[in-house]
Protein backbone atom coordinates (compact mmCIF):
# COMPACT_ATOMS: atom_id res chain seq x y z
CA UNK A 1 0.00 0.00 0.00
CA UNK A 2 1.21 3.42 -0.76
CA UNK A 3 -0.13 6.71 0.41
CA UNK A 4 0.96 9.89 -1.23
CA UNK A 5 0.64 13.48 -0.27
CA UNK A 6 1.98 14.75 -3.55
CA UNK A 7 0.31 14.08 -6.83
CA UNK A 8 0.93 10.50 -7.91
CA UNK A 9 1.35 9.42 -11.47
CA UNK A 10 -2.25 8.72 -12.19
CA UNK A 11 -2.91 5.82 -14.45
CA UNK A 12 -4.46 6.70 -17.76
CA UNK A 13 -8.19 6.81 -17.16
CA UNK A 14 -10.94 7.57 -19.57
CA UNK A 15 -12.90 9.81 -17.23
CA UNK A 16 -11.21 13.10 -16.40
CA UNK A 17 -11.01 13.89 -12.72
CA UNK A 18 -12.96 17.10 -12.95
CA UNK A 19 -16.67 16.78 -12.22
CA UNK A 20 -17.88 19.42 -14.62
CA UNK A 21 -17.04 17.85 -17.91
CA UNK A 22 -18.95 16.84 -20.99
CA UNK A 23 -17.48 13.37 -20.90
CA UNK A 24 -18.86 12.79 -17.41
CA UNK A 25 -22.28 14.11 -18.36
CA UNK A 26 -22.44 11.95 -21.48
CA UNK A 27 -20.84 9.11 -19.54
CA UNK A 28 -23.67 9.32 -17.02
CA UNK A 29 -26.26 8.92 -19.77
CA UNK A 30 -24.34 6.05 -21.36
CA UNK A 31 -23.79 4.20 -18.11
CA UNK A 32 -27.44 4.67 -17.24
CA UNK A 33 -28.49 3.28 -20.60
CA UNK A 34 -26.31 0.22 -20.02
CA UNK A 35 -28.19 -0.47 -16.81
CA UNK A 36 -31.37 -1.29 -18.72
CA UNK A 37 -32.05 -4.46 -16.72
CA UNK A 38 -32.11 -2.43 -13.51
CA UNK A 39 -34.42 0.43 -14.52
CA UNK A 40 -36.43 -1.84 -16.76
CA UNK A 41 -37.19 -4.03 -13.79
CA UNK A 42 -37.81 -1.11 -11.44
CA UNK A 43 -40.16 0.53 -13.93
CA UNK A 44 -42.30 -2.59 -14.09
CA UNK A 45 -42.11 -2.90 -10.34
CA UNK A 46 -43.45 0.65 -9.96
CA UNK A 47 -46.43 -0.21 -12.13
CA UNK A 48 -47.19 -3.46 -10.35
CA UNK A 49 -46.68 -1.82 -6.97
CA UNK A 50 -49.69 0.44 -7.37
CA UNK A 51 -52.02 -2.45 -8.08
CA UNK A 52 -50.68 -5.12 -5.75
CA UNK A 53 -53.36 -7.38 -4.36
CA UNK A 54 -55.99 -5.98 -6.71
CA UNK A 55 -57.66 -8.64 -8.81
CA UNK A 56 -57.19 -7.17 -12.27
CA UNK A 57 -53.99 -5.30 -11.38
CA UNK A 58 -52.49 -2.85 -13.88
CA UNK A 59 -55.55 -3.29 -16.11
CA UNK A 60 -57.03 -0.63 -13.84
CA UNK A 61 -54.83 1.88 -15.66
CA UNK A 62 -56.63 1.09 -18.88
CA UNK A 63 -60.06 1.02 -17.27
CA UNK A 64 -59.71 4.30 -15.43
CA UNK A 65 -58.61 6.10 -18.57
CA UNK A 66 -61.43 4.49 -20.51
CA UNK A 67 -63.98 5.67 -17.96
CA UNK A 68 -62.53 9.17 -17.92
CA UNK A 69 -62.55 9.42 -21.72
CA UNK A 70 -66.04 8.02 -22.01
CA UNK A 71 -67.50 10.28 -19.31
CA UNK A 72 -65.87 13.45 -20.58
CA UNK A 73 -66.44 12.46 -24.19
CA UNK A 74 -70.18 12.04 -23.82
CA UNK A 75 -70.49 15.27 -21.83
CA UNK A 76 -68.39 17.50 -24.08
CA UNK A 77 -69.68 16.01 -27.33
CA UNK A 78 -73.14 16.98 -26.15
CA UNK A 79 -72.03 20.44 -24.95
CA UNK A 80 -70.12 21.31 -28.11
CA UNK A 81 -72.62 19.61 -30.35
CA UNK A 82 -70.07 17.29 -31.92
CA UNK A 83 -70.64 13.76 -33.13
CA UNK A 84 -69.45 11.26 -30.51
CA UNK A 85 -68.02 9.16 -33.32
CA UNK A 86 -65.39 11.83 -34.07
CA UNK A 87 -65.01 13.41 -30.68
CA UNK A 88 -64.48 10.37 -28.47
CA UNK A 89 -61.30 9.13 -30.25
CA UNK A 90 -60.05 12.73 -30.41
CA UNK A 91 -60.49 13.20 -26.67
CA UNK A 92 -59.23 9.75 -25.65
CA UNK A 93 -56.00 10.02 -27.66
CA UNK A 94 -55.45 13.56 -26.35
CA UNK A 95 -55.82 12.31 -22.78
CA UNK A 96 -53.43 9.41 -23.35
CA UNK A 97 -50.75 11.72 -24.74
CA UNK A 98 -51.34 14.27 -22.02
CA UNK A 99 -50.98 11.68 -19.27
CA UNK A 100 -47.58 10.73 -20.59
CA UNK A 101 -46.33 14.31 -20.84
CA UNK A 102 -47.79 15.40 -17.51
CA UNK A 103 -46.32 12.30 -15.86
CA UNK A 104 -42.83 13.06 -17.15
CA UNK A 105 -43.03 16.69 -15.99
CA UNK A 106 -44.68 16.21 -12.60
CA UNK A 107 -42.70 13.15 -11.60
CA UNK A 108 -39.60 14.62 -13.20
CA UNK A 109 -39.69 17.41 -10.63
CA UNK A 110 -39.36 14.83 -7.85
CA UNK A 111 -37.26 12.25 -9.61
CA UNK A 112 -34.13 12.84 -7.52
CA UNK A 113 -35.80 14.03 -4.33
CA UNK A 114 -37.81 10.83 -4.06
CA UNK A 115 -34.79 8.66 -4.71
CA UNK A 116 -32.68 10.29 -2.02
CA UNK A 117 -31.99 6.97 -0.29
CA UNK A 118 -30.75 5.32 -3.46
CA UNK A 119 -28.70 8.32 -4.55
CA UNK A 120 -26.93 8.58 -1.20
CA UNK A 121 -26.23 4.88 -0.84
CA UNK A 122 -25.50 3.53 -4.28
CA UNK A 123 -23.25 5.11 -6.90
CA UNK A 124 -25.62 4.68 -9.84
CA UNK A 125 -25.64 7.16 -12.73
CA UNK A 126 -28.28 9.84 -12.27
CA UNK A 127 -29.79 8.93 -15.60
CA UNK A 128 -30.92 5.57 -14.18
CA UNK A 129 -33.64 7.44 -12.31
CA UNK A 130 -34.58 9.38 -15.46
CA UNK A 131 -34.79 6.26 -17.59
CA UNK A 132 -36.82 4.50 -14.91
CA UNK A 133 -39.28 7.38 -14.85
CA UNK A 134 -39.67 7.67 -18.62
CA UNK A 135 -39.93 3.90 -18.97
CA UNK A 136 -42.64 3.77 -16.32
CA UNK A 137 -44.60 6.49 -18.14
CA UNK A 138 -44.15 4.59 -21.39
CA UNK A 139 -45.60 1.49 -19.74
CA UNK A 140 -48.58 3.55 -18.59
CA UNK A 141 -48.92 4.75 -22.15
CA UNK A 142 -48.87 1.15 -23.36
CA UNK A 143 -51.73 0.27 -21.03
CA UNK A 144 -53.72 3.34 -22.01
CA UNK A 145 -53.26 2.77 -25.70
CA UNK A 146 -55.56 -0.25 -25.39
CA UNK A 147 -58.39 2.25 -25.00
CA UNK A 148 -57.44 3.69 -28.38
CA UNK A 149 -57.42 0.21 -29.95
CA UNK A 150 -60.91 -0.44 -28.61
CA UNK A 151 -62.17 2.92 -29.84
CA UNK A 152 -60.75 2.39 -33.32
CA UNK A 153 -62.63 -0.92 -33.51
CA UNK A 154 -65.89 0.65 -32.38
CA UNK A 155 -65.52 3.99 -34.21
CA UNK A 156 -63.23 3.48 -37.23
CA UNK A 157 -62.19 6.79 -38.84
CA UNK A 158 -64.76 8.25 -41.21
CA UNK A 159 -64.02 10.69 -44.05
CA UNK A 160 -62.27 13.06 -44.06
CA UNK A 161 -60.36 11.05 -41.45
CA UNK A 162 -58.67 7.90 -42.75
CA UNK A 163 -55.69 5.74 -41.89
CA UNK A 164 -52.93 5.75 -44.48
CA UNK A 165 -49.17 5.64 -44.73
CA UNK A 166 -48.92 8.90 -42.80
CA UNK A 167 -50.49 7.12 -39.82
CA UNK A 168 -47.13 5.41 -39.37
CA UNK A 169 -45.80 8.80 -38.29
CA UNK A 170 -47.28 7.92 -34.91
CA UNK A 171 -44.14 5.89 -34.19
CA UNK A 172 -41.56 8.66 -34.70
CA UNK A 173 -43.99 11.05 -33.02
CA UNK A 174 -44.01 8.90 -29.89
CA UNK A 175 -40.22 8.73 -30.06
CA UNK A 176 -40.04 12.54 -30.16
CA UNK A 177 -42.36 12.84 -27.17
CA UNK A 178 -40.32 10.26 -25.20
CA UNK A 179 -37.09 12.12 -26.02
CA UNK A 180 -38.65 15.31 -24.74
CA UNK A 181 -39.89 13.61 -21.59
CA UNK A 182 -36.30 12.65 -20.82
CA UNK A 183 -34.78 16.12 -21.15
CA UNK A 184 -37.63 17.71 -19.24
CA UNK A 185 -37.13 15.23 -16.38
CA UNK A 186 -33.37 15.88 -16.28
CA UNK A 187 -33.78 19.65 -16.32
CA UNK A 188 -36.69 19.99 -13.89
CA UNK A 189 -35.35 17.18 -11.72
CA UNK A 190 -32.01 18.91 -11.12
CA UNK A 191 -33.48 22.39 -10.65
CA UNK A 192 -36.17 21.08 -8.29
CA UNK A 193 -33.61 19.26 -6.17
CA UNK A 194 -31.91 22.58 -5.53
CA UNK A 195 -35.05 24.72 -5.28
CA UNK A 196 -37.82 22.87 -3.50
CA UNK A 197 -40.54 25.26 -4.59
CA UNK A 198 -40.31 23.96 -8.11
CA UNK A 199 -42.41 20.76 -7.72
CA UNK A 200 -45.59 22.54 -6.52
CA UNK A 201 -45.13 25.28 -9.13
CA UNK A 202 -44.72 22.65 -11.84
CA UNK A 203 -47.83 20.81 -10.68
CA UNK A 204 -50.01 23.88 -10.90
CA UNK A 205 -48.61 24.95 -14.27
CA UNK A 206 -49.23 21.47 -15.70
CA UNK A 207 -52.83 21.54 -14.47
CA UNK A 208 -53.32 24.93 -16.08
CA UNK A 209 -51.75 23.80 -19.35
CA UNK A 210 -54.17 20.89 -19.55
CA UNK A 211 -57.01 23.34 -19.99
CA UNK A 212 -55.05 25.57 -22.35
CA UNK A 213 -54.19 22.70 -24.66
CA UNK A 214 -56.84 21.49 -27.10
CA UNK A 215 -57.63 18.12 -25.57
CA UNK A 216 -61.22 18.47 -24.42
CA UNK A 217 -61.86 21.23 -26.96
CA UNK A 218 -61.14 21.18 -30.67
CA UNK A 219 -59.35 24.34 -31.80
CA UNK A 220 -59.65 23.55 -35.49
CA UNK A 221 -63.37 23.35 -35.12
CA UNK A 222 -63.34 26.74 -33.37
CA UNK A 223 -61.15 28.18 -36.10
CA UNK A 224 -63.41 26.92 -38.82
CA UNK A 225 -66.22 28.92 -37.24
CA UNK A 226 -64.31 32.05 -38.26
CA UNK A 227 -64.93 35.48 -36.80
CA UNK A 228 -63.45 36.76 -33.56
CA UNK A 229 -63.56 33.34 -31.88
CA UNK A 230 -61.74 31.76 -34.80
CA UNK A 231 -59.03 34.42 -34.59
CA UNK A 232 -58.60 33.87 -30.87
CA UNK A 233 -58.39 30.10 -31.35
CA UNK A 234 -55.27 30.67 -33.44
CA UNK A 235 -53.52 31.81 -30.27
CA UNK A 236 -53.62 28.20 -29.09
CA UNK A 237 -50.78 27.55 -31.53
CA UNK A 238 -48.45 29.53 -29.28
CA UNK A 239 -48.75 26.74 -26.73
CA UNK A 240 -45.93 24.24 -27.37
CA UNK A 241 -47.95 21.42 -25.79
CA UNK A 242 -50.42 21.69 -28.65
CA UNK A 243 -47.76 20.71 -31.16
CA UNK A 244 -46.67 17.68 -29.14
CA UNK A 245 -50.24 16.50 -28.83
CA UNK A 246 -50.84 17.08 -32.52
CA UNK A 247 -47.84 15.18 -33.93
CA UNK A 248 -49.10 12.03 -32.25
CA UNK A 249 -52.85 12.55 -32.17
CA UNK A 250 -53.25 13.33 -35.87
CA UNK A 251 -51.82 10.03 -37.15
CA UNK A 252 -53.56 8.04 -34.41
CA UNK A 253 -57.04 9.23 -35.35
CA UNK A 254 -56.38 9.32 -39.08
CA UNK A 255 -56.00 13.05 -39.61
CA UNK A 256 -53.70 14.54 -42.22
CA UNK A 257 -50.01 15.37 -41.75
CA UNK A 258 -49.17 18.95 -40.75
CA UNK A 259 -45.54 19.97 -41.12
CA UNK A 260 -45.52 22.89 -38.69
CA UNK A 261 -46.19 20.70 -35.64
CA UNK A 262 -43.11 18.65 -36.48
CA UNK A 263 -40.94 21.70 -37.04
CA UNK A 264 -41.90 23.18 -33.68
CA UNK A 265 -41.47 19.95 -31.70
CA UNK A 266 -38.17 19.00 -33.30
CA UNK A 267 -36.79 22.48 -32.70
CA UNK A 268 -37.80 22.33 -29.03
CA UNK A 269 -36.29 18.84 -28.76
CA UNK A 270 -32.90 20.10 -29.93
CA UNK A 271 -32.92 23.24 -27.77
CA UNK A 272 -34.29 21.35 -24.76
CA UNK A 273 -31.65 18.65 -24.90
CA UNK A 274 -28.92 21.26 -25.30
CA UNK A 275 -30.08 23.08 -22.17
CA UNK A 276 -30.56 19.83 -20.23
CA UNK A 277 -27.06 18.66 -21.17
CA UNK A 278 -25.51 21.92 -20.01
CA UNK A 279 -27.37 21.63 -16.69
CA UNK A 280 -26.40 17.98 -16.40
CA UNK A 281 -22.78 18.82 -17.08
CA UNK A 282 -22.64 21.61 -14.52
CA UNK A 283 -24.82 20.28 -11.73
CA UNK A 284 -24.82 16.49 -12.09
CA UNK A 285 -22.27 16.06 -9.32
CA UNK A 286 -24.17 18.47 -7.05
CA UNK A 287 -27.36 16.44 -6.96
CA UNK A 288 -26.08 13.97 -4.33
CA UNK A 289 -25.14 16.98 -2.17
CA UNK A 290 -28.51 18.64 -2.62
CA UNK A 291 -30.96 15.78 -2.12
Amino acid at each position, binding site marked *: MQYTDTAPEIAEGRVPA*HSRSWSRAIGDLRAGWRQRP*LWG*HLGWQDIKQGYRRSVIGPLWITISLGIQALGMGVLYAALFGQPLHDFLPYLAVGLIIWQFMAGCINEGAEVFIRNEGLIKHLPAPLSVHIFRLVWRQLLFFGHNVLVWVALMLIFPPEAPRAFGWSSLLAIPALAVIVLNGAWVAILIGIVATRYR*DVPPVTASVVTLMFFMTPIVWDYEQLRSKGGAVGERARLAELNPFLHYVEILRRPMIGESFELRHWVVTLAITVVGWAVALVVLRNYRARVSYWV
Partner: protein
Amino acid sequence: MVSIDVRNACVEFPIFDAKTRSLKKALLGTVGRAGGKIGVDTKVPIIEALQDISLTLRDGDRVGLIGHNGAGKSTLLRLLSGIYEPTRGSSRIAGKVAPVFDLGVGMDPEISGYENIVIRGLFLGMTRKQMEARAEEIAEFTELGDYLSMPLRTYSTGMRVRLALGVVTSIDPEILLLDEGIGAVDSAFLEKARDRLTALVERSGILVFASHSDEFLVELCTSGLWLDHGEIREQGDLRTVLAHYKGKDPAALSGLSGVKAEPITPLSPLNAAGGRGGGG
Protein backbone atom coordinates in the same frame (compact mmCIF):
# COMPACT_ATOMS: atom_id res chain seq x y z
CA MET B 1 -7.02 -2.00 -13.42
CA VAL B 2 -8.71 -1.53 -10.09
CA SER B 3 -7.57 1.68 -8.44
CA ILE B 4 -8.64 4.70 -6.45
CA ASP B 5 -6.76 7.97 -6.67
CA VAL B 6 -7.89 10.86 -4.56
CA ARG B 7 -5.98 14.11 -4.51
CA ASN B 8 -6.58 17.05 -2.19
CA ALA B 9 -10.25 16.26 -2.18
CA CYS B 10 -12.72 18.24 -0.12
CA VAL B 11 -16.34 17.42 0.49
CA GLU B 12 -18.39 20.41 1.57
CA PHE B 13 -22.12 20.30 2.17
CA PRO B 14 -24.20 23.36 1.63
CA ILE B 15 -26.86 23.52 4.33
CA PHE B 16 -30.02 24.94 2.92
CA ASP B 17 -32.58 25.75 5.51
CA ALA B 18 -36.21 26.24 4.60
CA LYS B 19 -35.49 29.85 3.77
CA THR B 20 -32.48 29.57 1.54
CA ARG B 21 -33.57 26.50 -0.37
CA SER B 22 -36.27 28.33 -2.25
CA LEU B 23 -36.43 30.07 -5.54
CA LYS B 24 -37.90 33.15 -3.92
CA LYS B 25 -34.93 33.61 -1.66
CA ALA B 26 -32.50 33.22 -4.53
CA LEU B 27 -34.39 35.66 -6.69
CA LEU B 28 -34.95 38.19 -3.95
CA GLY B 29 -31.35 37.79 -2.90
CA THR B 30 -30.17 38.86 -6.32
CA VAL B 31 -32.51 41.81 -6.34
CA GLY B 32 -31.33 42.78 -2.90
CA ARG B 33 -27.71 42.81 -3.94
CA ALA B 34 -28.44 44.65 -7.15
CA GLY B 35 -30.22 47.35 -5.17
CA GLY B 36 -27.41 47.37 -2.70
CA LYS B 37 -29.84 48.16 0.07
CA ILE B 38 -31.55 45.19 1.56
CA GLY B 39 -28.96 43.03 3.20
CA VAL B 40 -30.21 39.62 2.21
CA ASP B 41 -27.39 37.24 2.96
CA THR B 42 -27.56 34.62 0.25
CA LYS B 43 -24.48 32.82 1.52
CA VAL B 44 -25.35 29.26 2.35
CA PRO B 45 -23.57 27.84 5.40
CA ILE B 46 -21.21 25.05 4.49
CA ILE B 47 -20.13 22.02 6.46
CA GLU B 48 -16.65 20.87 5.58
CA ALA B 49 -17.06 17.14 5.99
CA LEU B 50 -13.73 16.20 4.45
CA GLN B 51 -10.71 18.38 3.89
CA ASP B 52 -7.68 17.84 1.75
CA ILE B 53 -7.90 14.08 1.45
CA SER B 54 -5.19 12.44 -0.64
CA LEU B 55 -4.80 8.72 -0.97
CA THR B 56 -3.94 6.08 -3.50
CA LEU B 57 -5.34 2.59 -3.34
CA ARG B 58 -4.36 -0.32 -5.53
CA ASP B 59 -5.46 -3.90 -6.01
CA GLY B 60 -4.97 -5.88 -2.82
CA ASP B 61 -5.21 -2.95 -0.43
CA ARG B 62 -7.20 -3.61 2.75
CA VAL B 63 -7.81 -0.38 4.60
CA GLY B 64 -9.51 0.03 7.94
CA LEU B 65 -11.07 3.43 8.59
CA ILE B 66 -10.72 4.56 12.17
CA GLY B 67 -12.16 7.63 13.81
CA HIS B 68 -14.75 8.99 16.19
CA ASN B 69 -18.39 9.37 15.29
CA GLY B 70 -18.66 12.30 12.96
CA ALA B 71 -15.02 12.16 11.91
CA GLY B 72 -16.06 11.69 8.28
CA LYS B 73 -15.75 7.93 7.83
CA SER B 74 -19.08 7.45 6.07
CA THR B 75 -18.52 10.54 3.95
CA LEU B 76 -15.10 9.26 2.93
CA LEU B 77 -16.64 5.93 1.93
CA ARG B 78 -19.16 7.81 -0.18
CA LEU B 79 -16.38 9.83 -1.76
CA LEU B 80 -14.50 6.63 -2.58
CA SER B 81 -17.64 5.08 -4.06
CA GLY B 82 -18.22 8.05 -6.36
CA ILE B 83 -21.52 9.05 -4.74
CA TYR B 84 -19.96 12.37 -3.76
CA GLU B 85 -17.59 13.90 -6.21
CA PRO B 86 -15.13 16.23 -4.47
CA THR B 87 -16.09 19.89 -4.34
CA ARG B 88 -12.39 20.72 -4.60
CA GLY B 89 -9.54 18.46 -5.61
CA SER B 90 -10.06 15.34 -7.63
CA SER B 91 -10.95 11.69 -7.37
CA ARG B 92 -10.58 8.91 -9.87
CA ILE B 93 -12.14 5.55 -9.31
CA ALA B 94 -11.56 2.64 -11.67
CA GLY B 95 -13.38 -0.61 -11.01
CA LYS B 96 -16.79 -1.92 -10.12
CA VAL B 97 -17.72 -0.45 -6.75
CA ALA B 98 -19.93 -2.29 -4.28
CA PRO B 99 -20.81 0.00 -1.40
CA VAL B 100 -22.43 -1.70 1.56
CA PHE B 101 -23.54 1.14 3.80
CA ASP B 102 -27.11 0.42 4.64
CA LEU B 103 -28.35 -3.11 4.31
CA GLY B 104 -31.91 -1.97 3.81
CA VAL B 105 -31.48 0.40 0.91
CA GLY B 106 -32.79 -0.90 -2.38
CA MET B 107 -34.98 -3.45 -0.61
CA ASP B 108 -38.68 -3.31 -1.35
CA PRO B 109 -40.95 -4.48 1.48
CA GLU B 110 -43.81 -5.33 -0.87
CA ILE B 111 -42.05 -7.88 -3.02
CA SER B 112 -40.82 -11.35 -2.17
CA GLY B 113 -37.42 -12.25 -0.79
CA TYR B 114 -36.41 -13.84 -4.09
CA GLU B 115 -37.33 -10.73 -6.06
CA ASN B 116 -35.42 -8.63 -3.58
CA ILE B 117 -32.34 -10.78 -4.06
CA VAL B 118 -32.41 -9.98 -7.78
CA ILE B 119 -33.10 -6.25 -7.37
CA ARG B 120 -30.49 -5.75 -4.70
CA GLY B 121 -27.98 -7.61 -6.88
CA LEU B 122 -28.79 -5.39 -9.86
CA PHE B 123 -28.15 -2.35 -7.70
CA LEU B 124 -24.77 -3.77 -6.77
CA GLY B 125 -23.80 -4.13 -10.40
CA MET B 126 -24.63 -7.79 -10.96
CA THR B 127 -26.76 -9.10 -13.81
CA ARG B 128 -30.12 -10.76 -13.42
CA LYS B 129 -28.74 -14.10 -14.62
CA GLN B 130 -25.89 -13.99 -12.12
CA MET B 131 -28.30 -13.31 -9.30
CA GLU B 132 -30.73 -16.00 -10.34
CA ALA B 133 -27.88 -18.47 -10.40
CA ARG B 134 -26.94 -17.46 -6.86
CA ALA B 135 -30.45 -17.36 -5.42
CA GLU B 136 -30.31 -21.01 -4.34
CA GLU B 137 -27.05 -20.54 -2.51
CA ILE B 138 -28.31 -17.36 -0.85
CA ALA B 139 -31.49 -19.17 0.20
CA GLU B 140 -29.42 -21.87 1.84
CA PHE B 141 -27.17 -19.39 3.63
CA THR B 142 -30.01 -17.26 4.97
CA GLU B 143 -31.92 -20.34 6.24
CA LEU B 144 -35.11 -18.54 5.29
CA GLY B 145 -36.54 -21.46 3.34
CA ASP B 146 -40.08 -20.97 2.11
CA TYR B 147 -40.14 -17.48 3.56
CA LEU B 148 -38.25 -16.29 0.50
CA SER B 149 -41.44 -16.39 -1.54
CA MET B 150 -43.23 -14.21 1.02
CA PRO B 151 -43.23 -10.39 0.82
CA LEU B 152 -40.35 -8.79 2.67
CA ARG B 153 -42.72 -6.89 4.96
CA THR B 154 -43.60 -10.16 6.71
CA TYR B 155 -39.97 -10.60 7.78
CA SER B 156 -38.61 -9.80 11.19
CA THR B 157 -35.70 -7.36 11.40
CA GLY B 158 -33.30 -10.23 11.93
CA MET B 159 -34.58 -12.04 8.86
CA ARG B 160 -34.15 -8.92 6.75
CA VAL B 161 -30.58 -8.56 7.91
CA ARG B 162 -29.91 -12.18 6.99
CA LEU B 163 -31.33 -11.71 3.54
CA ALA B 164 -29.40 -8.50 2.97
CA LEU B 165 -26.18 -10.05 4.22
CA GLY B 166 -26.78 -13.08 2.05
CA VAL B 167 -27.08 -10.95 -1.07
CA VAL B 168 -24.28 -8.58 -0.23
CA THR B 169 -21.82 -11.38 0.50
CA SER B 170 -22.66 -13.21 -2.72
CA ILE B 171 -21.45 -10.52 -5.13
CA ASP B 172 -18.06 -10.19 -6.83
CA PRO B 173 -16.93 -6.61 -6.30
CA GLU B 174 -13.71 -5.02 -7.48
CA ILE B 175 -13.88 -2.32 -4.85
CA LEU B 176 -15.69 -3.22 -1.65
CA LEU B 177 -16.67 -0.44 0.73
CA LEU B 178 -18.12 -1.54 4.05
CA ASP B 179 -19.58 0.72 6.66
CA GLU B 180 -19.84 -0.31 10.28
CA GLY B 181 -23.07 -1.88 11.34
CA ILE B 182 -22.84 -5.02 9.29
CA GLY B 183 -22.01 -6.63 12.60
CA ALA B 184 -24.38 -8.51 14.75
CA VAL B 185 -27.33 -10.67 14.00
CA ASP B 186 -27.66 -13.65 16.32
CA SER B 187 -24.32 -15.01 17.32
CA ALA B 188 -24.63 -18.39 15.61
CA PHE B 189 -25.59 -16.72 12.36
CA LEU B 190 -22.87 -14.14 12.81
CA GLU B 191 -20.17 -16.82 12.71
CA LYS B 192 -21.57 -18.01 9.41
CA ALA B 193 -21.82 -14.47 8.09
CA ARG B 194 -18.24 -13.75 9.09
CA ASP B 195 -16.95 -16.65 7.07
CA ARG B 196 -18.80 -15.38 4.07
CA LEU B 197 -17.69 -11.82 4.71
CA THR B 198 -14.08 -12.93 4.91
CA ALA B 199 -14.50 -14.84 1.65
CA LEU B 200 -16.08 -11.77 0.06
CA VAL B 201 -13.17 -9.60 1.13
CA GLU B 202 -10.73 -12.11 -0.29
CA ARG B 203 -12.54 -12.00 -3.65
CA SER B 204 -12.53 -8.22 -3.89
CA GLY B 205 -9.68 -6.10 -5.20
CA ILE B 206 -9.76 -3.18 -2.79
CA LEU B 207 -11.40 -3.12 0.62
CA VAL B 208 -12.14 -0.04 2.70
CA PHE B 209 -13.85 -0.87 5.95
CA ALA B 210 -15.10 1.60 8.54
CA SER B 211 -15.62 0.10 11.98
CA HIS B 212 -15.34 0.71 15.67
CA SER B 213 -14.50 -2.93 16.30
CA ASP B 214 -10.75 -3.44 16.58
CA GLU B 215 -11.19 -7.17 16.39
CA PHE B 216 -13.11 -7.00 13.13
CA LEU B 217 -10.67 -4.47 11.65
CA VAL B 218 -7.65 -6.57 12.43
CA GLU B 219 -9.36 -9.60 10.95
CA LEU B 220 -10.11 -7.96 7.60
CA CYS B 221 -7.59 -5.15 7.11
CA THR B 222 -3.87 -4.71 6.90
CA SER B 223 -3.50 -0.96 6.89
CA GLY B 224 -5.24 1.77 8.79
CA LEU B 225 -6.40 5.29 8.12
CA TRP B 226 -7.29 7.54 11.01
CA LEU B 227 -9.75 10.28 10.24
CA ASP B 228 -10.19 13.17 12.61
CA HIS B 229 -12.51 16.09 11.95
CA GLY B 230 -12.58 15.35 8.26
CA GLU B 231 -8.83 15.20 7.85
CA ILE B 232 -6.44 12.29 7.60
CA ARG B 233 -4.60 12.23 10.91
CA GLU B 234 -2.48 9.19 10.27
CA GLN B 235 -2.13 6.41 7.75
CA GLY B 236 -0.03 3.28 7.71
CA ASP B 237 0.12 -0.09 9.37
CA LEU B 238 -3.23 -0.89 10.96
CA ARG B 239 -1.97 -1.87 14.40
CA THR B 240 0.24 1.19 14.67
CA VAL B 241 -2.54 3.54 13.63
CA LEU B 242 -4.99 1.82 15.95
CA ALA B 243 -2.59 2.13 18.81
CA HIS B 244 -2.03 5.83 18.20
CA TYR B 245 -5.75 6.33 17.90
CA LYS B 246 -6.29 4.63 21.23
CA GLY B 247 -3.37 6.53 22.67
CA LYS B 248 -1.52 3.35 23.52
CA ASP B 249 1.83 1.82 22.86
CA PRO B 250 1.80 -0.14 19.60
CA ALA B 251 3.52 -3.04 21.32
CA ALA B 252 0.58 -3.53 23.62
CA LEU B 253 -1.64 -4.02 20.64
CA SER B 254 0.54 -6.36 18.71
CA GLY B 255 -1.27 -9.51 19.76
CA LEU B 256 -4.47 -7.64 20.30
CA SER B 257 -4.78 -9.80 23.40
CA GLY B 258 -4.01 -6.86 25.60
CA VAL B 259 -6.82 -4.82 24.17
CA LYS B 260 -10.36 -5.60 24.93
CA ALA B 261 -12.22 -5.41 21.69
CA GLU B 262 -15.13 -3.06 21.69
CA PRO B 263 -18.44 -4.81 21.41
CA ILE B 264 -19.58 -4.95 17.85
CA THR B 265 -21.96 -2.14 17.16
CA PRO B 266 -25.40 -3.62 17.00
CA LEU B 267 -27.05 -3.21 13.70
CA SER B 268 -29.53 -0.42 13.65
CA PRO B 269 -32.97 -1.56 12.57
CA LEU B 270 -33.14 -1.84 8.84
CA ASN B 271 -34.64 1.13 7.24
CA ALA B 272 -36.40 -0.40 4.31
CA ALA B 273 -37.45 2.96 2.98
CA GLY B 274 -33.91 3.74 2.09
CA GLY B 275 -32.65 5.65 5.08
CA ARG B 276 -31.09 9.03 5.19
CA GLY B 277 -27.38 9.18 4.87
CA GLY B 278 -25.83 9.97 8.19
CA GLY B 279 -23.09 12.50 8.19
CA GLY B 280 -20.92 10.36 10.44
